């Protein structure tokens, strides 16, 4: 059976003037429906580029992305993105930010009242229903990111793409949001690709961890299965042997075999 989502021999190079840099080299990755896959790698290796290719915001130089057997090469709500810096529209309220996507995706299939209900339902999923009339500037960083997640979820994407969604948050807020995302994944069964540079976050949340080699010409160095049963509890895992082994493996990859070299 063909995989749900497939990155097929993806190469990406950027050309600036006469200078061409190859960022991604021969990326092959298959993801099953409902799977939670993390991509981890040192900063600048091309993780965002890879995610943007799946989102259709960037096009691959060679190769392509197949979703349910069909090629996707333009952005769309079936691959909703949660951006690192939330990217809420500051002139819209929390509610209207989510509603914008809902209206576009369900404008023809749901009535006005249903779209309102659906918007509120998704805000409630991320516990933001109470702040619906506030503007992004009036809520905290963690809350903005929650709204970003609600906006993406509300489009009922086939694949949810998260680009370092918790990167800008403090440790406590981050842990809280990780738990929320885990609970949502458990409840809704979305297919998720998440970029991260946090080893614990990757192991805690993912079914598989894709480890990227350093750029330029970054490749997939290794893919690690995380055979931990769900639901997972942060505190219990802290002493779990499998958890620690996975964590060790990723750390080794990142800090031994593919140590980040500052531009020498």
């Amino acid at each position, binding site marked *: 059976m063909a995989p749900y989502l497939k990155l097929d021999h993806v190469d990406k190079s950027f050309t600036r003037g006469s200078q061409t840099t190859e960022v991604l080299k021969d990326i092959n990755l298959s993801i099953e429906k409902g799977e939670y896959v993390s991509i981890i790698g040192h900063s600048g290796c091309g993780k965002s580029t890879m995610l943007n290719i799946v989102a259709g*915001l960037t096009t691959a130089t060679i190769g392509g992305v197949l979703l349910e057997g069909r090629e996707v090469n333009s*952005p769309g709500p079936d691959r909703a*993105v949660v951006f690192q810096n939330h990217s809420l529209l500051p*002139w819209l309220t929390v509610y209207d930010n989510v509603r914008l*996507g809902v209206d*576009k995706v369900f404008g023809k299939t749901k009535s006005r009242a249903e779209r309102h209900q659906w918007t509120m339902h998704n805000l409630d999923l991320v516990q933001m229903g109470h702040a619906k009339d506030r*503007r992004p500037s009036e809520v905290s960083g963690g809350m903005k990111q929650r709204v970003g997640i609600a906006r993406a979820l509300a*489009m009922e994407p086939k694949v949810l793409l998260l680009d370092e969604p918790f990167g800008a948050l403090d440790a406590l807020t981050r842990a809280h949001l990780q738990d929320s995302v885990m609970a949502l994944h458990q409840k809704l069964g979305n297919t998720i690709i998440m970029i991260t540079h946090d080893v614990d976050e990757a192991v805690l949340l993912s079914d598989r961890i894709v480890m990227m080699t350093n750029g330029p010409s970054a490749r997939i160095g290794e893919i690690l299965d995380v055979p931990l049963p769900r639901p997972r509890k942060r505190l219990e895992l802290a002493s779990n042997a499998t958890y620690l082994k996975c964590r060790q493996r990723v750390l080794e990859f990142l800090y031994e075999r593919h140590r980040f070299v500052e531009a020498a």
Partner: protein
Amino acid sequence: MAMPASKSDAVIAMPQGAASASAVSSPVVTLTPPKRMTEPGKYAKNMREIAARVIPPLVVITLFLVIWELLCRKTGATLPPPSKVISDTKELILHPFFDNGGIDKGLFWHLSASLQRVALGYSLAALVGVGLGTLIGQSIWAMRGLDPIFQVLRTIPPLAWLPLALAAFRDGQPSAIFVIFITSIWPIIINTAVGIRNIPQDYRNVAAVVRLNPIEFFTKIMIPSAAPYIFTGLRIGIGLSWLAIIAAEMLIGGVGIGFFIWDAWNSSHMSEIILALFYVGIIGFILDRMIALLASVVTRGTATN
């Protein structure tokens, strides 16, 4: 500075109700003894702040009027003193609405004719300017083609367009409107273009993921995102319009505050000129404030993130 003190004394004696009404919206004061005491206290503080803003300009204006009066009272002075300006123009001040036909009308009619020309020319400039600005902000080729031309055209002084406009339209009215249009459009185009070019990539990505069509993208992303820039252009534009209309009307004649000033000069009515200048200044100020107010209402929340 005896005035603010005596003002606040008067306030403390005011009835409780009136004082508390405004105390609600006043900033919190940290010194908080018994409640009955603080409310008039806050009110007094408020009044002191208002006084601090109102009194200095009043003092300066009074000084200016006194010096002007003293300088122009002497025999042989070329300009009338303020007292004479008021006595000369009493009729004009008290009866702004008279209409004896022709250009013999009250000041209201002159100002309203000028404002109508500005309203027309400026609205056209705003529409076309935001449109063209969006085009050259969005398309690198439109920018390369149009920007150099705009950079040259925008340096042409407003009145230099007037003869050409008169030749083309063969009538004063459309020519004046055209001069307003061509004067105010450049800052609108240029600021809009900068605003559009500065739309963060993130917002474009959001629009792409949600699949906004071009019209939705224009109204839901471009305009709100570029609004602070657009309003900067609009505000510069309204100022330039008001500058240009006075000059243009002096040349085209007819009803309008510009020609009123010119006509007063030809009949040596210096007091009327001074009164007209006063009105022109006030209205220019109000126009500027109106656009600024509109901007702050429309761009509420846009600038911060």
